């Protein structure tokens, strides 16, 4: 729903990486692997 979408848009970037929570090796690998082939 729009409010959930809004919540996630505030918390995460369009690649699924959190704006606020520090990342670690596993999380960053997960973010990178979910990304489509970058141009």
């Amino acid at each position, binding site marked *: 729903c729009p409010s959930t979408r809004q919540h996630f848009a505030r918390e995460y970037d369009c690649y699924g990486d959190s704006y606020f929570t*520090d990342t670690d090796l596993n999380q960053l690998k997960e973010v990178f692997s979910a990304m489509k082939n970058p141009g």
Partner: protein
Amino acid sequence: MERKVSRICFASEPDIIHFLQIAWERTLGSGFLITLTDGQSAWTGTVSESEISQEADDMAMEKEKYVDELRKALASGGGPADVYKFDFSKESCHFSFEKTLKDVSFRLGSFNLEKIESPAEVIKKLICDCLDTIAENQAKNEHLQKENERLLRDWNDVQGRFEKCVSAKEALETDLYKRFILVLNEKKAKIRSLHKLLNEVQEPERNIGHER
């Protein structure tokens, strides 16, 4: 000139070893020289290309196939003992050989030879040919051995570089991720502090709004 020496026994003297040397220039089918010796006497003969063709025709065999049979019988170390049979008459100097297939023997060829007056020279020539072949083979083997050692060294070298590349690739990935994480977390800390500041600034305004 190609030469091949084989050990053969004759059907008439199965326990006595004889040596048969075949020598040819371009191909066996273009004609060859035969030398036969029992270590004491020696006989030689020549077989021409036309004689070979004639023999093949007589046997209704393709010339290539016939030459192949000649090679197996005369220039391959005598061939399997039960396949090719040889015979020689010292009186008539007639040499013949046949092939046995499934208990059926058929004549493969025959030549007339001439007895050599001075067999010692022919025998010496045959031994010299053997020694030359031994020397050639040894030189070839040494060359192949060196080649193999070189290839093994090259393989070890490339394998080492491959393993280093694999390690370097893994190290690169680890290193990049470490750097990325540091930089990203710096940015996130900045975002958190800006967000906190924004909340602090926006809080009194919200209170004022409530009071109003």
